[in-house]
């Protein structure tokens, strides 16, 4: 819990830097194609809010992130649990996973491009690929870390496999799954914006790129601020959710 003073101190450096930037853009950098005064950038951002396109584009990025993340989770959580439960399955899939995992998702983006063309599906598929592996690995680890005593209790109570999974394993791994979620939210957003910057003419990343291509530094900065804010908020929400789950699960008897 940060005190009020802590928050204020944290704002000092950014405010000083912004002030310097403001001064610089009024003097030395007045004709820059790259940087404008932060005040002008904020003004541009508010204008963009009123114009409306920014909402559609932000929505696109959030949609692809959300769908990609969900797709990854739906596939990776059960798989991870299965790998965690069965040492044999884990060993058998080891090589395949180790070969596919290091592929940077951005490298596969051109493939998705020719399969799906520009648009939503292309981005969702790559985000899903990027988020699949961390969720898989963390789910597997979470299952391996379930308290062995609890599993023994399940056996002693003559639970079948389904009951054991639902009553003991699933509740035990929920906190770690939310950690994976938090991580994946960050990954999803970064991958989404990256694809939009590199090749997909939709979403926030494209807003940034098209502003640069039309030599509109004010819009470019506005987009950067907005992307940073959206990223920060999303991560903060995911963190808060994860902490809340942590507390709930710990507190429950």
């Amino acid at each position, binding site marked *: 819990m940060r005190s009020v003073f802590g928050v204020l101190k944290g704002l000092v450096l*950014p405010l000083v830097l912004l002030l310097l930037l403001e001064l610089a853009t009024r003097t030395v950098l007045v004709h820059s194609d790259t940087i404008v005064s932060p005040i002008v950038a904020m003004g541009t951002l508010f204008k963009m809010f009123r114009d409306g396109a920014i909402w559609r584009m932000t929505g696109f990025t959030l949609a692809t992130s959300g769908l990609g993340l969900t797709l990854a989770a739906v596939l990776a959580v059960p798989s991870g649990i299965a790998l965690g439960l069965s040492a044999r399955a884990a060993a058998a899939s080891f090589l395949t996973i180790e070969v596919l995992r290091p592929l940077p998702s951005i*490298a596969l983006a051109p493939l998705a491009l020719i399969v799906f063309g520009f648009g939503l599906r292309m981005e969702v598929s790559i985000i899903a690929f990027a988020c699949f592996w961390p969720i898989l690995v963390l789910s597997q680890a979470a299952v391996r870390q379930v308290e062995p005593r609890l599993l023994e209790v399940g056996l002693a109570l003559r639970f079948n496999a389904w009951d054991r999974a639902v009553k003991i394993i699933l509740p035990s791994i929920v906190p770690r799954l939310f950690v994976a979620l938090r991580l994946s939210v960050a990954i999803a957003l970064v991958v989404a914006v990256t694809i939009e910057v590199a090749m997909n003419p939709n979403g926030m990343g494209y807003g940034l790129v098209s502003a640069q291509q039309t030599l509109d530094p004010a819009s470019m900065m506005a987009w950067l601020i907005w992307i*940073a804010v959206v990223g920060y908020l999303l991560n903060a929400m995911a963190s808060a959710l994860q902490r809340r789950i942590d507390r709930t699960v710990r507190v429950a008897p």
Partner: protein
Amino acid sequence: MTLSGLEGPRAAGLVRHGGSVIVLGAVLTLWWFASHFGWVSKVFLPTPEAAVGSLLSGMSSTGGLGEDTWLTVQRMLIGWLIASLLGVGIGAVVGMSRRARVYVQPMLEFIRPLPASAVMPFAISAFGLNPSMVLFVVAFGAVWPVMLATAHGMASVEPQLKEVAAAMELGKPAFIWKIGLPNAAPDILAGMRLSLTVALIVSIVGEMLASQAGLGRAVLLAARSFQSSELFAGVVLIGAIGFASNLCLAAAERRLVRWKTI
């Protein structure tokens, strides 16, 4: 019934690894069938032989993939090294001083979620479409994981060790060099590993966006001309770079941080 010569734990290990190979083989076989029987169009899924063929011819002296690979690796490594030096330096200063952390940490937390690629349009605007621009963004993107890891590692020095250093009249620089940095070494190396991944990704993005020679551009061009086998060859090489660099760093980590696992 046991196969002669394969008994006990050795057999179990062999079976385990054998199983892994079999599964991978099954996946490759599936690929072979899918491409040969047209379950997936050859425009998207080349046959394994075609992909290998493109890879080999690309890597030969007449193909351009070798050159592309070298350029991408160069970009990645140089940007990563610059980022590591900067990151450790700044991170050490920030990590050492609690006061510095209070002022700097919130800003770092705000910058951390920002995709490095978002900086690329600014860099293009400022520097133009050239290799230095890409290098700049690579270094910029790769600096954060190392910096944050270093600051964290330095800040987590055992308080008792600070007293030990005080009792021995060790000055601040000596403390950072002999105690702070070695203590932070595991964190720093983990941060550097993350940075290397970022460096590779940003290199690829830079090559794609700014049309700079390298595997990123090669893969994008292959996609645009629907050359799926070339595309696959490029992707395999990118994956190989990621895999190999990670392997090397993990080995270095293990060597340098021997004392942690004893």
